[in-house]
C-alpha cells in the first residue's frame, strides 16, 4: 500500500493556506486557461454531483413531494414544520452526542498511534498499514463485525467482560448504549485516517526544535506539550474540521448497525433525512432538513476557521 503518498498529501493540504498568496499576481490569459484546464476534471463532477443536487434540493425543500406524485409548491412550510417539530431537535441532539463521543476518542487514539508509529519500530510500515486497513473497509462489513463483537448475549466483548465478573451492557439493543456502540465502531474505523494525517504532521516538524528543547532541559512530556502539540496544530485543525463535518453527516454506521433504534435513540440527522425521503414519502421535508444541516455545518466550519487564529501555529 502506498502509505507514504497518503501520508504526504494531507500535510501539503494543511500548509496550503500559508503558501496561498505566492503566485497571486500572475493573471495572463494563458495562465488562467491552464488553471481552468487543471480544475475542470474535478469541477465537472463537483457541479454535476454536488452543486446540481444541492440546488435541486433547495427547490425540492419548498415543495411537498413523495417521489412519485408531482411536486406541489408550499413555500416555507417544510422549514416551519421542521422547526416546530421536536424530533428535529432530537436528531440534532443525537448527532451532537455522537460527535461528543467520537471526536475526542478518534483524535486521542489517532495521536497515540501516530506518536507510537513515528518512532523507529520494527515493521513500522506494516503496523501503519494494519491500522489504516479499517479506513478502506466497507462500512457494511465493519458494522456486521461490530454488531457481532458487541452482541449482548454471546459477543466477544461481553464474554471477555464476563471473565472479570462484569455483566456487559446490552450495547446496540439498549437505548443507553446504542450510541456508544456506534461511537466505538466509528472511532475504530477512522483511527487510521487520523493517524496518517497526524503522522504526516509529526514528520514535518523540524527536528532542530526537539534538539533545542533538549538542550534547554525539556523532558519527554514537556517536549510533547511545548513542541509536538503546538507544531501539530495545523494537522489537528484539519482533523477536527474534517471529523466535525463527517460527524454531522454520520449515516452509514447508524443505518447498518441500529437503523436509528432502539426506540429512536440513535436517530441522527441524516438517518432522519433518509427515512423522511424513502420511508415516509416526505422528500420536501427531507430536503429542507438537508439544508438546515448544511447551514449548521457551514456555520460550525466558519467559526472554526475564524477561531483557528487563536490556536493554530503554522511554522
Amino acid at each position: 500500500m502506498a502509505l507514504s503518498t497518503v501520508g504526504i498529501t494531507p500535510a501539503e493540504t494543511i500548509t496550503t493556506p500559508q503558501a496561498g498568496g505566492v503566485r497571486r499576481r500572475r493573471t495572463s490569459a494563458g495562465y488562467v486557461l491552464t488553471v481552468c484546464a487543471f480544475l475542470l476534471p474535478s469541477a465537472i463532477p463537483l457541479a454535476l454531483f454536488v452543486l446540481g443536487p444541492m440546488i435541486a434540493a433547495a427547490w425540492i425543500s419548498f415543495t411537498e413531494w413523495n417521489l412519485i406524485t408531482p411536486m406541489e409548491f408550499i413555500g416555507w412550510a417544510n422549514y416551519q414544520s421542521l422547526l416546530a417539530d421536536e424530533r428535529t431537535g432530537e436528531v440534532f441532539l443525537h448527532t451532537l452526542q455522537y460527535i461528543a463521543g467520537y471526536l475526542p476518542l478518534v483524535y486521542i487514539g489517532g495521536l497515540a498511534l501516530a506518536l507510537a508509529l513515528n518512532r523507529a519500530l520494527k515493521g513500522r510500515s506494516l503496523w501503519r498499514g494494519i491500522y489504516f486497513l479499517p479506513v478502506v473497509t466497507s462500512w457494511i462489513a465493519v458494522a456486521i463485525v461490530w454488531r457481532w463483537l458487541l452482541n449482548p448475549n454471546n459477543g466477544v466483548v461481553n464474554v471477555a467482560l464476563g471473565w472479570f465478573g462484569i455483566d456487559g451492557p446490552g450495547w446496540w439493543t439498549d437505548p443507553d448504549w446504542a450510541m456508544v456502540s456506534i461511537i466505538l465502531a466509528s472511532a475504530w474505523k477512522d483511527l487510521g485516517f487520523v493517524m496518517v494525517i497526524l503522522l504526516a504532521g509529526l514528520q514535518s516538524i523540524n527536528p532542530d526544535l526537539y534538539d533545542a528543547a533538549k538542550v534547554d532541559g525539556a523532558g519527554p512530556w514537556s517536549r510533547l506539550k511545548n513542541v509536538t502539540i503546538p507544531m501539530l496544530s495545523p494537522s489537528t485543525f484539519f482533523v477536527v474540521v474534517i471529523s466535525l463535518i463527517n460527524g454531522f453527516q454520520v449515516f452509514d454506521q447508524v443505518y447498518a448497525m441500529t437503523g436509528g433504534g432502539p426506540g429512536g435513540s440513535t436517530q441522527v440527522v441524516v438517518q432522519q433525512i433518509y427515512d423522511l425521503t424513502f420511508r415516509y414519502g416526505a422528500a420536501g421535508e427531507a430536503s429542507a432538513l438537508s439544508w438546515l444541516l448544511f447551514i449548521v455545518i457551514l456555520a460550525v466550519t466558519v467559526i472554526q476557521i475564524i477561531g483557528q487564529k487563536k490556536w493554530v501555529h503554522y511554522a
Partner: protein
Amino acid sequence: MKHSLLAAGGILGVSALLLSACATEPASSDDPVTITYSNFTSAGGNEENLQTIIDAFEAENPNVTVDVTTLPYGDYFTTLQTDLAAGTVADLVDTNYDFFPQLASSGSLAPLEVTNPESYRESLIDAYSVDGVSYGLPSSFSDVVLYYNADLFDAAGLDYPTSDWTWSDEMAAAKALTDAGTGTWGSHQPVSFYEFYKVLAQNGASFLNDDGTAVAFNTPKGIEAAEWLTSKSGTVMPTIEQGQGTADFDTNLFLEGKLGMMHSGIWVFGALAEAPFAWDIAVEPGNTQQASAVFSNAVGVSAASDHIAEASAFAEFLTSSQTMVDVRLDSGWELPPTSDEDQLAVYLTKDTPANRQAVFDSLDSIALTPLVEKGQQEMQDIVTEELIEAQAGRKSVAEALASAEERINAVIG
C-alpha cells in the same frame, strides 16, 4: 448556464415528441420487444421458479424478451420509488397490498384491460382495482399460520395444536416446551405492526376507528392484545438481547429444533423442507375469535412504459397461466391467485406440512392490514417501535400504546 438550460430543455422536448410518436405508432407484432420486470416476490429462493414461468411466456411469444431484475423485499420499495422519481421504472413492477394505493393514486400505473377477470379470486382482483378499473393483477397470496415441531411436542407429552386452540392453550404448551437447560423455547411471535393488528382482531379489538381517521387500539382489549404479543419475550421466547428480532431468527431457531412453535407465513415452507424432524401447521390461535393475516402481491404495468401491450400480456401470463399455477403449487411458492378451487385441491395432496387445509381454513377469518391515506409507513414504524419498548420492559404496555396512539394520530390525522 442559461443557454445550456435552454438547450437541455430543447433536447428534452424533442425526445418527448419522439417518444410520444413511438408510443402512438402501433408496434408490429413481429418486431422484437424487450420488456423489463422488477420484482421482489421471487427473491430468496424462487428465482428459478420465476424463470420457468418467463421461459414458458417467451416460448409462446417469441418476439418478446423479458428482462428480469430481482431485489430483496427490504430494498424493493425504496428502489421502486427512486426509479419512479428518476423516470427509470421497469415496464412491469411488483407491488403489495400496502403500497398499491400510493402507487395507483400517483398515476404511476397504467389501467389494465383484463381479458379473464373470472380466473382470479374475486377478493384479490378487487383489492387491486380502483373504481372498477384494474391497476394491478394479483400474482400470489399467502397467510400466516402456527408452525409446530411435532417431535418436541411428543417428547413433552403434549397434544398437537389444533385449529380450535386459543391463546391460553398456546401459552400453556409454550411454557411446558420451554427448557432453559436445553435452550429450547416454547413459541415465537414477532413483535411488530403486522402481528399487532392481527392479535387485536383475535381479541375483538380493532386498529383504526370506523372512518380510519384515528387509532382505536388504546382500549382494555387492545392493551390485553399487546400484552399477549409482548409478554412472550423472556418467558417462552428469547429476548432482543438474545437475538430475537434479527432476520430469519425464528426460522433458524425452529430449524435447529429449539423452537416448539412459531407464527410465520406459508412462504417459509421451502426453507423448512429439509428440517430433520416432524413438523406441521395449524390455524393461528385466537382469544375471543380467530383472525389470520393474509398478504397478497400483484404486478402493475408502468404508465410510462413504451410497451404497455406486451407488458400487460406478460402480466396476465404471470398471474393466470396454467404454467404459473403448476409452478407455484409444485414448489409451494405461496398460492396462485386462481379462482379455480379444483386446482388448489392439488395443493392439499402434497405433504410436509400434512395439514395444508389450515392454510385455507385461515382464510375463513381474515384480519386485513389497516390502511390510511397519509403516513402508512410511519404509522407502522411507530407501532413496531412502541411495542418493542414494551417488549424490552422500558415502557409498560399501557404507556407504549398511549404513546403510539398520540404519535400516530398526529401523523394520520
